[in-house]
Each structure stands twice: as C-alpha cells, then as structure tokens.
C-alpha cells in the first residue's frame, strides 16, 4: 500500500459527500498527490479500491489532469506558465534564468532532489504575469531578483 490510512479515510469521506461515487475521484487524486507527491498506476488501483470506482476511470481522470505529476519530482515542483500573457512578459527568459540558476534543463530535477522545473499552460493568473506555481503556491509579477529570493527561501526551508 502506498496510500496511508489517513488518506484513504479522507478519500472515503469526500467520496461519500457526492451523489455519485465517481465524483470522489478528483478529490481522491488530490489527496493522494498531497501525500505522495506524484501519482502512478498503483495509486490509481488503491484509489479505485478505496472509493469503489473502476480503476480505468481513476486512470482516465488522472491522466487528463496534467497538473498531477506522474513521476516522482523534486521537493519543489516549479511550474512556469508559458501561455500568452506570461510569454509576452518574458516567461521564456524566466525559464532560461531558472535553468541557469538550478543547473538543469526544463523537465529535469536537481541532483539534491530539491527542484523540478517544468513549464505549463495558463494558470489563470494572467493579470500578474509572468508567474509560476511551486507546489501549491503562486508566485506572481516575477523578476529575476524575486526568483533569487524565492529560491533562497525555499532552500532555507528545505
């Protein structure tokens, strides 16, 4: 079992709140992601069993949502928005700067397993472009200086 008792209990509680059990899949995926940090087939099976829904439907929902990483990531998953508003305000150079600072390419994880860098579609925060999401938090109106500070703080926390 990958999922712990708390996660399973929470999933079951959430699933019971909907008229259709199937609706419990998305909350369950989020709960699993929060616990494990990524998702995989084994987790889909455990979710299917926990909330009694078909395994394939868990897998379908999980793969539909690219926001759930399907492989282990570093402690911090940096998701830089590369969609239109952010792109116009320098998302590309932001990614380049992060690659340079972290010493990895987009899609890779640092050796110390702290950071994984990817770029993603619009995160709905266009008014504060360019922006990125790290794990569950938004970082907005980014500049290089801000990025330096953010990384420093995260390193300190880790």
């Amino acid at each position, binding site marked *: 079992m990958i999922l712990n008792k708390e996660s399973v209990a929470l999933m079951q509680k959430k699933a019971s709140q909907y008229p259709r059990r199937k609706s419990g899949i998305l909350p369950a995926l989020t709960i699993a992601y929060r616990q494990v940090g990524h998702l995989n087939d084994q987790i889909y099976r455990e979710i299917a069993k926990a909330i009694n829904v078909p395994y394939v439907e868990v*897998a*379908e929902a999980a793969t*539909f949502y690219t926001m759930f990483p399907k492989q282990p990531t570093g402690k911090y998953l940096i998701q830089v928005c590369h969609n239109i508003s952010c792109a116009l305000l320098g998302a590309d150079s932001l990614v380049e700067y992060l690659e340079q600072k972290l010493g990895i390419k987009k899609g890779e994880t640092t050796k110390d397993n702290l950071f994984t860098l990817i770029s993603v579609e619009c995160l709905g925060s266009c008014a504060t472009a360019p922006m990125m999401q790290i794990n569950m938090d938004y970082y907005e109106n980014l500049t290089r200086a801000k990025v330096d500070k953010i990384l420093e703080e995260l390193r300190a926390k880790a």
Partner: protein
Amino acid sequence: MSTSTTTQPAVKMVTLTINDQSVTVPKGTTVLQAALGAGIHIPTFCWHPKLKSVGACRICYVEIEKMPKLQVSCATEATDGMVVKTESDIVKRGRKAVLEFILANHPLDCPTCDKGGECDLQNLTFAHGLDDSRFDFLKRRHIVPGVPSTFDDLRIGPEIMLNRNRCILCYKCVRSNKEAFGEYDIGAFERGNAMEINAAPGEQVANPFSGNLVEICPVGALTNSDWRYKIRVWLTQTTPSIDIFNSSGSNILFYKEDHKNRIFRTISRRNDEIDDGWITDVARYGYQLVHSPDRLQKPLMKKGSKQVPVEWEEAVAFVARRLAEIDDTKGCVCIGGLASPTLDLDSLHSFSKFMRKVIGTNNLDFRIDYRSLPEKPDSAFSTLSSQPFTIAEIDTSDVIFVFGSDLVKEHPNEYLRIRKARNFGRPLVYSVNSFNVKSADVADREFIYAPGTEEVFINGLCLAAIEENPGLSGADGLKRKISPADLNSAAKTCGVSAEDLKALARTLINGKKISFIVGDQVSLSRDREVIAAALCNLNRLVGITSRGQMAALARYADSIGAEKLGLIPNPHPDVKRALTDLWGGFPEMAGYHTEGMFSQMLKGELDAMVILGANPVAMYPDHEAVAETFEKLDFLVVADLFETETTAMADVVLPLASWTEFAGRYVNLEGRIQKAERAIKPLYESKPAYAILADIAAAARKPLFSSAREREEEIEKVLACTTVRPWPGDYLDVRPPAIDKDPAYPIMLIIGDDPHHRCYVTEKAASLVKFCSDAYIELSPELAEKFKVEDGDAVRVESKYGKLMAPVKVSRVLEGDVVFLPRNFSVTRANSLVSRKARIDWVRINKVSG
C-alpha cells in the same frame, strides 16, 4: 383513479421539416433519428443507436433555421416547427471543415489499413473530395516503444490491435464498453492533442463482449487478429446466420469466400428484438471451430481395438445392421439416443422419428448438462420452463428479478438488455443467487441466500407478501402447504432478512410490469421440481405473469425446438398426439430420459446408444461413473464434429457438419424460429445429422421421409402445437429436502461456462483459447487470503467424488466460501468433481506447494 395499469401514457408527437419534407416523430427524438427514420442520410461517427449521444465528432452537422450556428443533429432534440437542412452549402462546408480537423493527425494509410473498403472515414473523405491538407506541421504519431512496426500497432487484448494514429476519438469503444457492457478494461487517457484510447494501464481488453469494440470502430483504429490481413472485405461474400452458442440466437453475418470455402469472420446483424447489435465473443469467434484442423474428416469404425477410417457406405450399413441385431435379440427397449439441443430442427425431428419410428424406442432425450436430471419427470418445472418469455419486454419492465442465474455466463444478451433498461429507464433490478455474480452490477440490490435454500427463499417471499398484503387470495391455503410456514424461520434458514424479503415482496406486488428470470441454479438443481413448485406458488399468490413474464430460460440454441418437437420420453400431450397422427403410432413404452438411460446402461439393460453432437462422458456429472457406464454398452454410435471422450468409446464415429455448412432452423428461448443459412459447403466428408439419420434409415430399409418437403411439413405440424403448460390450479406442496453437508468439504463449488467458452466445443476456436485455454479455480479474495494463494498458484480441489488441480484466479465478484470452475476444457474435467445425486457440490481445496 385509473383502473387499468396497462394503458401506456400517450406519447406527444412533434412535426418538423427536414429538407422540405414534413416529418412527425415522438417527442424526445433527435433530429438525426428523425432524419434517418425518414430515409434522409446524415453522416455520423460517434453516434450509436444503442448508446447515449455525446456529440464528440461533429460530423453530423445540420443547419436549423433560427439557430445561428450549425448543430450536431445527434444531440439536438427535434421540436415542433423546426426547419432543418442537411445538405445545404453551409452544412457541406461545415462537414468538410470537421473532416479536415479529424484528418489533421490521421495517417491516411488506407492502402495498408485493414479497414479499407468498409471505413466510414475513408468513404466520407472520398465523398467530400479532400485530397489535401492545409496543416503543414508534423502529424502526431504514436510509436509503440520497442516494437519496430511500420504500422505502430499495439496489441491491447488477446484479439484486439490498436492503431492510435488512426483513431478519431469518437469514444464509441470506451462508451459501449462502459455503458452497454459494464466493462472497464479500455479507456481514454491524456487530453487534447495527446489524447489516446488504450487498455487500462497494465491490463488487457478481454471482456466477453470485446469483439464489439472492433466492430463499431468507424475507422481502422481497432482491428482484430481474427480477420486482419487475411482477406480484403470486397473479395468476400456474406451469409446471414445465427449464434448457436446461445439460447437467444443473436443474429450474425458470416463473411466467407466461396472458392476457398472458408469463413473469415462474424459480425452482428442487428436485431433489435434480440441482440441490439451486440454479440458475444463466443458468437463472434466461435465459427473458427468449423475450420479447426481437428475436425473429423471421415467415418471411423472400430476394428479390433482401433478406430479406423472407413467409407460412409460401410459405416452406415454397419450401424443399420447392428441396431437391427440388437433390436431383434434384445428388443428396441434396449436402444437409446441423445441429441444435442444445438442441432437444427430438421435434425432433431429426424432423430425423434428415427428413434421412435425406425427403431421403435422411446428412450430419447436432449438434456445433457453439468448436473444430472432429477429421476422423476418434471411437472412444476415443465410449467416454469415452458412459459413464454420475450427478450425485448425487458426494456420496458419496471421490475426485473434475476433468480439463481449467473446472467453474463448463462444469458449474456439478457444481461445487456437489463443494462440498457437501466441506462435509459428506471427499472428496479434485483439479483438473487446463492453466490455473488458479475451481473449484479446492474442490480439495485444483490441478495445472497444460503446454499441450497432456493425454495425456502421463495417461500419466504410468499410469506412476506402475505404479511405485506394479508388480503392476497388463498393465503391460508398456501401456508398449510409450505414449510417453514412463518416468515422469520424462512428468513433465518435462507439467510435473507425478513425486512428484505418484505421489501422484495412489495416490489413484486406493486410492479406494473415484471420480468422474472430463473436461471441455472434452479434449472439444473437436483430439487428443481420443489423450487419450481415454490415459484408456481409465488406466481399464484402475487400474480407475476398477469403483469409480466416469468420463466426458467432455455439454455441452448435449440432447446425450445427440441422441447416443442417432443424430444423427451414424455412430450407435451398435444405434441404426442400430433406425432401419433403423423406416424400412425407412437412407442408404447414409457421410455427413459437421460438419467434413466444411464442407470439402465449401468444395469446392463440398455445395450446400444445413438448420440448426436453430445459428449456426455465429458459433460455429464461424475466423470468416472459415466465412462464406466458407457463401457457397458454393446454398441455405441456417435456423430460429432470432433473426436471427444465419448467418440473415443464408440464403435462407429460419424463426421457431423456444423451449423455453417447447411441451412438449418433453430428456436430461440422466446420460441422464435430463426434460420441459419448455409455459408460454406460441408468440409471433408461431414454431413448434417438429418442426412446421416436418413442414410441409416434407408440402409435399414425403413426410409425416414419420402422427401425434404415431407420432413418440413411434419415439423410444421408438430411446431404448431402449443407447448406452454398451464400454471397449476392450486398451491403446491413445498417441503424443502435436507441439504447434505460434510464439514470436511466446506466450500461450495459452482460449475458453469467460462465467459469465453460454451460446452466442450469452443476449445477448438483458436481466438477463444487466447482468452482462456484451460480450467482455473476462481475463488473469493477471502479464500485466497486464507489459503495464501495468488493468481496462477496451483490448488487441488477435492470433492467426495474426485479431485483435480488447477491454477487460481482471484475473483473480482465472488465472496465467501465459494469457488467457480469452468467446465469447458478437455484437460481439466470439471465433471469429475460432480456428484449425480447431491444438490450442492461441496469441495475442499489445498494449495499445491512448489
């Protein structure tokens, strides 16, 4: 208050105009269906008549006045006064644009695609003259890792190949799988441009209906290894036929090539009254057994200790002579016969006449199953099994009760029907059995009664009904006839609570239209007469058949035909009279049924058997005893497609032609007579059973019929008799017999068909063997845990009568102390565990270490 419960509420009609034609349809009809109904064609990809509309592909665009944009006709409801155009310029432009989109990633590999010639996409693209694309980026291409294939085909199931590049994402495969079949082994993954169809991660698409996915794929994305790359569709001819592996008789179409005298595939031939266009994999791939290299090619005759090939004349003359000799020396009472209920009407009637008129015996039967027949002839059960049942009535039933049936294995079509009723209506569905079954997934509730308490459960229902509605007529009379006669002790014995029984009784009392299906756990029970009596009482008490239908469903393609033609020692009196009239007589003797014949054989009082298309040594309970019984025979003649355990013991073996090799008629469980046309010429020297019998009769100088015409007329006359037996005029005694149980054998054994096999013949169909090639022990997760076994581990199963070894399959449905064993395999013979006398087969299991 309305006094009648049967009048349908009037359906509101709407009238619309499609292409200047006025069309009137019931409210709720889609624009697409209104158009199709009026003979106006609109192209579709994702729409399917038996699935809910999703509007995924957009190819069915039409123009509707007062609507600003084109509308998808498959998901737009027709309304009064609507003005629809299906062929205007703007519609054509829209369609063309949709096609361009669909083709954006399509590989356009028609020359190497197996769907070529019957592809909706190819046809439509051709019709719209799209020979170029404005997209100049690279197409998205799914490459199968590690598979150096030019076609990028991925195997996603024992039979199914997937080419994701060709897929147009209509989702028909996924939708039908989930919606129509209740199966979850295929899905749609990822999103947007990356979206793809695939098997559930780490699994195979191997459900009992999986072949349908290939059939309904509008493009060449799903193909099956049965058919692909063997022949081009335009080089084949088609022959309408029916599925003879199933008592519903799904309608099918064979694709064959006349010069090769070979069938290449089976697809459905949609019959909305029976199959809705869905056929099982057994129906689809079962034809392969016809071309099996193991087919019997020539008659065989035992000479010395060996069976050697001989000419037909020699074999036929020998059979005629031996039967005449035995008749002369011992009398015709010493001759018996068994015919398979999957044979056509001509063969069955010829058999009846051959036995009764040519030989003069009344020892004949068609019932050979994995449980023995009760010794006494049926009465209540004959009533129950002769009741009319109409498959399509399930659609509109508001209460559906499935009693003692593992429906997916026994009656797959009816299972799909109930699913459909659930998808499109709100029936209450109950599944009641002594073990958990897959088909309970369509039920509102599943009830499990204790092993061997069918009649107690039904008594309980009657008692509950009386408590719910004390005014029910004759309640007191009933109580005197049944035991236990109080609700609480019945509930206690059968293990279903009094509250639940009352709730069930209420639905039966209040249901407006009931479909009550009785399955194998009743039909094949040693005590089926008692259970049937209980069911007769229930019907008398609450009047199920006055508001619907209730029957023990027939199990084989022509069981009803055999019943109607009187292929049992004591046929329906009307049938007997008709036969007597036709033949100017009927054997005087009572005659023995299957079980009786076997006892007579064992006693040495039955010396010769004629067997057509049946394999009792492998299928009838208590393998060793049956084999021993057959050894006692003086003379055994068997006609079959293959060499079997039974033919191995025969003095003469005759090669039988399959249902594809001659035109035959079969009567499905509804009593519907259907025809299977001849698709190919008989292979090798095989002959239909009716021809074989005619030859033997001619050799005995007692010709069966003067002409085929005469045979047909006789059949017509006999079939004209109604064989529905009236319900008893009073309540019947129901005293549950004791259930034998030995604590040394604590587990209940269930025997039946694997969902991909039927009886003993489908082992010869290569595709079906890919799904399942030998017996397994399906057991509940609890038992798996208890015996510390996983999938594939070997276990030994032992009953008082025999033992065998098989690999474990941990069940997704079974719960508790129950194991399931398929009966279809010659290596592992399920019938060696089964007793002839017990009601329940109790076993124990052990893990085989190492």
